[in-house]
């Protein structure tokens, strides 16, 4: 399990290769890459600054990955989250999960992504100036579905 919070960009190919080559019984890697869009809530976004709570960020990411590992039979997981100033098309986040089969890897990857939103805050630069982005209720909906069944 590897958790990294960093300002630097990351190389998805190199990260996935490192993850998948650790064990001979890994049969599947599911990965998600999030990147900055140039539009949010109707406004052009020139860039954004991502602030976090050092210490708590790593602690909560580790807890999310532990929950995924307890729930699905996966072999390893990697989370890289960037902070600081980012512009459209910049990569923000990588979640990659290795397992024996695709089902567990897909589910665990999506679960980790749904719970990942702690504790980061986004500030966008738009033509109307800078603004803090409010929390979205759709994120709560995404998390709630994992409590069903």
């Amino acid at each position, binding site marked *: 399990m590897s958790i990294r919070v960093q300002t630097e960009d990351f190389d998805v190919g190199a990260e996935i290769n490192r993850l998948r080559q650790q064990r001979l019984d890994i049969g599947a890697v599911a990965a998600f890459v*999030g990147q900055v869009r140039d539009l949010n809530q109707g406004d052009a976004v020139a860039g954004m600054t*991502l*602030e*976090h*709570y050092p*210490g*708590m960020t790593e*602690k*909560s990411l580790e807890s999310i990955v532990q929950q995924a590992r307890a729930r699905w039979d996966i072999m390893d997981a990697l989370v890289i*989250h960037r902070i600081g100033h980012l512009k459209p098309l910049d990569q*923000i*986040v990588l979640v990659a999960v290795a397992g024996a089969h695709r089902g567990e890897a897909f589910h665990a990857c999506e679960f980790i*992504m749904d719970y*990942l*939103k*702690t*504790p*980061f*805050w*986004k*500030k966008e630069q738009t033509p109307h100036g800078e603004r*803090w*982005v*409010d*929390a*979205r209720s759709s994120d709560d909906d995404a998390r709630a579905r994992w409590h069903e069944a």
Partner: protein
Amino acid sequence: MIRLLYFARLREALGSVGEELAPQAGLTVEALMQQLAQRGGVWAEEFGSGKSLRAAVNQTLAPVTTEIHDGDEVAFFPPVTGG
């Protein structure tokens, strides 16, 4: 002493990244918020009722009933929006 931390929009509104305080015995997150609100002005605005703030004690999200002890790290921040 307890270490207080403020983040994101709250940090900018208060003009402070944090501070140190001597906690009273039996202090809870809720009581601490009331204490901060009593400073008036922007503090009353941010910590008075109505604003949705989250609290973490020792880097774990904490309900307002959580007790705060000497040496704790207490953080206040808006709901998170990362990812």
